[in-house]
């Protein structure tokens, strides 16, 4: 039997690539973080697709855990952003250069 690659998996990889590109090229902290979330959700899409095409339920379980972890990470990340925002007007990765001197 020819093994078909589900179309959604290709979509997931494309979204993952867009997210990775965004983290590398965008310099605004919030946008960078959004791109990381995009990468997480691309992986989630992959799990859901595989659950359907392989007929194994573990994918959905992993998906639920990932959603929870991503929420915890977002909470900590946004708290860090607010802490930085207290020190300066905007959160731009270009301006975060205290440590290179």
């Amino acid at each position, binding site marked *: 039997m020819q093994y078909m690659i589900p179309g959604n998996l290709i979509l997931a990889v494309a979204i993952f690539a867009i997210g990775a590109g965004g983290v590398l090229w965008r310099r605004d902290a919030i946008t960078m*973080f959004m791109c990381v979330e995009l990468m997480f959700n691309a992986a989630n899409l992959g799990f859901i697709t595989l659950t359907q095409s392989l007929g194994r339920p573990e994918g959905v379980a992993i998906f639920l855990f990932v959603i929870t972890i991503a929420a915890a990470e977002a909470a900590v990340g946004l708290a860090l952003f607010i802490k930085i925002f207290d*020190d300066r007007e905007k959160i731009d990765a270009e301006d975060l250069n205290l440590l290179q001197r």
Partner: protein
Amino acid sequence: MNLNLFYFHVVDSLLLTSPLLLLMIAAIVVLAADVMMPRDWRGALPWIAGIGVAASSLALAGTGINGIALTLFNGALVIDRLTFLSDAVILGGALYLIAISPRWLRGRWVPQGEYYALLLFATMAMMALAHSNELLALFLNFELLSISFYVLLGIEKRNPRSSEAGFKYFIIGSLAAAFLLMGIVFIFGATGGQTRFEAIARALDGGAVRQPLFMAVGLGLLFVGFAFKITLAPFHMYAPDVYDGAPTPVVAALATGTKVAGFTALFHVVEMVARWKGLPVGVWGAFYAAAVASMVVGNVGAVVQPNIKRLLAYSSIAHSGYMMIPLAVVLAPRPDLIGAARDAVAYYLLAYTIMTLLAFGVISTLAPEGEGPIAAWAGLGRRAPMRAAFMALAMLSLIGLPPTVGFFGKIALFGVAIDGAHIRLAVIGILASVVSVSYYLRVVIAIYMSEPAEGAGRVGFPNAAQTLALVVGAVCVFVFAIFPWLYSG
């Protein structure tokens, strides 16, 4: 599995993970005590944390060491020789850092309860990551460790450098987690929905993997996630900045514990694929390239660093490169060398942890003057002879001079490369060590052969706990070199 057996399995699993559970309980007790105790009893917090780590160590000793690998919680976690040794190293490091921390924290804007609680959570996460034996458990423990460190690195209030270090680690850490997760998607798909490492290894052996390319891509992405975590070149860019800005004891935990846990987990992944006949050569190439690149980038980058913490960041990149040598050899493929590689990596993790913790311990006691440029260390040999000697000892051990742990660790690592007929890797490692002499000796020269700057008086004394920790660390540099069987049994 029938219900009765399942019940015993869960009880067994809970008993065998009691070192982790005790750390979690201690962390919660610290948090509760911080809120409920009167303010001037804050000094008890490190004691509570220390007792928690000590109890966890006793529980670990109780679980004992044997050659048999046990899987817990239906295969989510594993206990074997390697995890026992890395647990011991992680707990020892945690106790050392709890002894170093109170004096360092004095006069700084750091919330005490959260600091010790998060240190315990991070320690627990390190141990859990080392035990991971299943893809989901791997991801969860990876993230538990990352999230603890996002907060710990940026915990110092009114210090924009600490916030910046936390921010940089946050972006890089979540990027690493995303790569790891995407790798898991590919492996999950390629093996037809397997998540446990043994099941994946069986699927690979039995030829059940329909898309070897998918498996290879998955392993590659997984490796990128790990590479960020254990600072392998070319995913190391964040390390110098993060090490420079963050609180020194936290950096010490990041530089040692994270690597012990990350390398142990990565070793389990390597064990999983080592016997796969169809292992694409690209996976081996990635490990080989990361080993060489880290040794080169780490050692060359450190040569020009004027700042002690940045220097140690590059040094940690270089040492990760050395530790990749046995993994690259095993994937060459030489699955017969896996036992030797395990022993070499376990011993080097211990050696690296001892000498790096000793160096960061001395830096912590010299804070804040000693945390910046190496020039500030000039003439330390006369101003603080004991700590100067300890720092010099750490530097000589990091170079790998006998009779220190660093020397025997490197012998073990390069020995695996020679046994596996990868002489080139061993030669690169030795040349990289020769380059490393230049920058480690720069610190020693500053300590003993430079005149102190005008107006540099006596530096502050370390307190009793710090002195004890440093002495124990310095003794360990020799003890585990002369009696390696104390560690590996």
